């Protein structure tokens, strides 16, 4: 390989390195956004410890396993009237009072409506949490659920 070819090769590699360094900007921006979100969540938790405790209850009883992380959207539930999925929980504060929500958690959802009345019974039903969650844990959980909000701009849901 001649020296001129080698110089061109090194110049090409330098350009590739420069491009890679520019690309790190995108990764950094994403990580910065995540860091901001975490910092805001920490501040929110400090400002309202009951909501932080409620989030812990939500995760301790694996509510997120069906309703999704942060109640943002549920997993598939074949033929459920709520779009074939377990409901998200971002709109509960619009449709439930505190006592109604507590009652819902205690009693669970024994019957899930079908999207297609002639179709299969949706396999997932919410079990009653009467014997598991009560007292302070129930107040904290409900406070957390009532604090959930859909992202700005999302249409109001008719049901949770």
């Amino acid at each position, binding site marked *: 390989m001649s*020296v001129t070819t080698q*110089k061109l090769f090194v110049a090409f*590699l330098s350009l*590739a*390195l420069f491009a890679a360094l520019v690309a*790190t900007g995108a990764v*950094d921006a994403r*990580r*910065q956004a995540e860091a901001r979100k*975490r910092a805001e969540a920490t501040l929110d938790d400090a400002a309202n410890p009951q909501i932080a405790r409620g989030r812990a209850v939500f995760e301790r009883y694996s509510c997120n396993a069906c309703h999704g992380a942060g109640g943002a959207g549920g997993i598939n539930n074949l033929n459920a009237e709520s779009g074939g999925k377990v409901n998200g929980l971002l709109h509960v504060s619009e449709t439930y009072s505190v006592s109604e929500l507590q009652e819902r958690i205690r009693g669970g959802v024994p019957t899930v409506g079908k999207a297609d009345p002639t179709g299969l019974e949706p396999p997932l039903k919410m079990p009653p949490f009467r014997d598991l969650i009560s007292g302070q844990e129930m107040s904290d959980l409900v406070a957390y659920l009532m604090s959930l909000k859909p992202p700005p701009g999302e249409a109001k849901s008719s049901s949770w």
Partner: protein
Amino acid sequence: MSASSLRRWLAERVPVPMEELRKPLREELPAHLRTWIAWLGGTPLALFAIQVVTGILLTFYYTPDPARAFESVRHITLAMRYGWLIRSLHQNAAQLMIIALMLHMIRVFATRAYRRPRELTWVFGVTLFLLTLGFGFTGYSLVYDSLSYWATTVGTNLLGDVPLVGHQLLWLLRGGPDVNPNTLSRFYNFHIGVLPTLMVAAIVAHLLLVRLHGVARLEGDPRTETYEFFPEHVLREAAVAIVLLLALVVYAMARPPGLGVPADPSFTPPHIRPEWYFFPSYRWLKMVPMQVGIWTSAAFVLGMVAWPWIDAGLERLAPGRRIGIWIGTAGFLFTLVLLVWEALS
């Protein structure tokens, strides 16, 4: 002021003999150095430069205090702008530096470039390798997560078993009988002060000797042609350095550095292991009685340092039999087996 008058002004006040300084750039190198494995002499130096730059940036935010060390690493990794990139480059350039040094040593060993009069160049080379391992050991402990804390505890414990001076060595490193707040500040001091100073001194000595002796010719190589250090060899070294840096940057984007569990002196994790480059000695020390392990490890290191003279002695005993190469190959394979064994266990 034009560029030429500025140059004249500077030359008058700083009378550097530029022509003399340019001479090393025109050094003639033997043709066998055109093979890629012969470029790896400069690679550890380029990687060391990356370590210096990223290391200085990390010291801006790292706190060598047991109560805050892990948190500062978390802050660098998750919150600082480009902190993930800097930390990843530092962490992985260190691994590459050790691999590059190993390959460079294997090349020098296999070509017997350490023969008289270049024995001291080899000795300084081995010193650089040992210092790099020292960087790895102290650097790993600074992260202060559970695994690094316990690896430090186990690693320094071994020193306590060294005959005669073990107790003193242990205290020197730990600043107490156990791993304690003093230990972290000592390791930090070693990592950013003592070791870099020794490293720079050893690099200068190594390069100076390489330059003074010139690059060794390959035994039995009939080629007489040469090529100039600058620009051809420098371009090859630069190409390797840029490719490695590019790979490091791409790797950092694909797999940004993670965080372990904060160190907890009251809880010993089930699988304590040092970094991979200590696997062979770790496995060896687990296999044999402690005193045997320590003496054989010391003999191994001494053997490496004194290899040029040992090899010369073997050559005098059995001329032309290349016993040294066979011993070296056996030693290398044994080390490799120990490394793989520990990695798979």
